[in-house]
């Protein structure tokens, strides 16, 4: 199963290693023991939040402040699951892990790929999810242990994640019957960047897009028909 799932996860492997190593290095340089980076990647497993957390730990913020920021940064995930309710139905014991491991990248892969014929769907998605987290944990451990001695420069490798999102966007553009969700999302992203600023852009664009999708649902259905 893992061998079949592996090729689908290679873009995430490249991207997660690159940004995982950078995260491990950052946390180590903030004065924490190396093992804190992989522990955090196992328990928290949320890229944007973990980058933010390095600053929070260094600034010695309160636990409450850390929790509230985690809620704000990850609030978009409260919407993601809506499109997986059906797909993950009947996943049984693997469901808690599938849900726990729903990062942006894993969500993008799971919603846009169908397992190869003959494979157990849930098993395939579980393998993709677990492989992705292994890359992230490995990257952060490598970064924290050896980040400053690595003989090669990872600069630019994180573009693999942008490229993955572009590929999945092209697939969605080809299969979605309406152009409206794309236009709405693009307008909301630009608006969010201008108004909420780069740091809050992701949350602001997801919230505003979902609200507008609900408001204009009748027009969108008519447009798609």
């Amino acid at each position: 199963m893992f061998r079949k799932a592996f090729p689908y996860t290679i873009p995430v492997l490249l991207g997660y290693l690159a940004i995982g190593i950078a995260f491990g290095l950052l946390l180590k340089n903030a004065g924490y023991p190396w093992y804190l980076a992989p522990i955090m990647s196992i328990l928290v497993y949320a890229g944007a939040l973990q980058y933010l957390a390095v600053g929070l730990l260094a600034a010695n913020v309160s636990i409450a402040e850390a929790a509230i920021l985690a809620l704000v940064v990850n609030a978009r995930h409260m919407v993601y699951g809506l499109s997986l309710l059906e797909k993950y139905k009947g996943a049984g014991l693997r469901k808690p892990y599938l849900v726990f491991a729903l990062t942006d990248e894993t969500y993008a892969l799971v919603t846009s790929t169908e397992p190869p014929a003959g494979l157990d769907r849930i098993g395939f998605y579980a393998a993709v999810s677990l492989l992705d987290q292994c890359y992230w944990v490995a990257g952060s451990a490598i970064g924290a242990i050896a980040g400053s001695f690595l003989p090669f420069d990872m600069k630019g490798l994180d573009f693999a994640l942008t490229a993955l999102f572009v590929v999945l966007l092209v697939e969605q553009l080809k299969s979605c019957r309406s152009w409206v969700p794309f236009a709405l999302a693009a307008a909301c992203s630009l608006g969010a960047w201008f108004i909420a600023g780069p740091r809050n852009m992701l949350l602001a664009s997801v919230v505003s897009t979902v609200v507008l999708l609900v408001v204009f649902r009748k027009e969108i259905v008519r447009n798609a028909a």
Partner: protein
Amino acid sequence: MPLEKAFIAIAAMAAVTVFTRAFPFIFFRNRKPPEALDFVRDYIPPAVMMILVLSSFKDIKWASSPFGIPELACAGLVAILHLWKRNAMISIVGGTAVYMILTRSGIL
């Protein structure tokens, strides 16, 4: 913060993250989502993909050289490669390789 407190903060952030991811699965375990959300569900993946692409450009410094040209050009290259070959590996590895060459070579 001291290491002990860091562990507590990490546990708190882990708990909140799990809560956000589990929320729809717990909330709609025994009932059907309302019709409005039912609709949104189908359009979240396309919208989120657009948002993820655009937000990966959020930290680009548009006002100074190289003005985001490597990012935009390589994202365009990935899209063209993908429309042409429809092979995710070729599109992603090709686009990333060109990006690394462009940003390191000092051409732009």
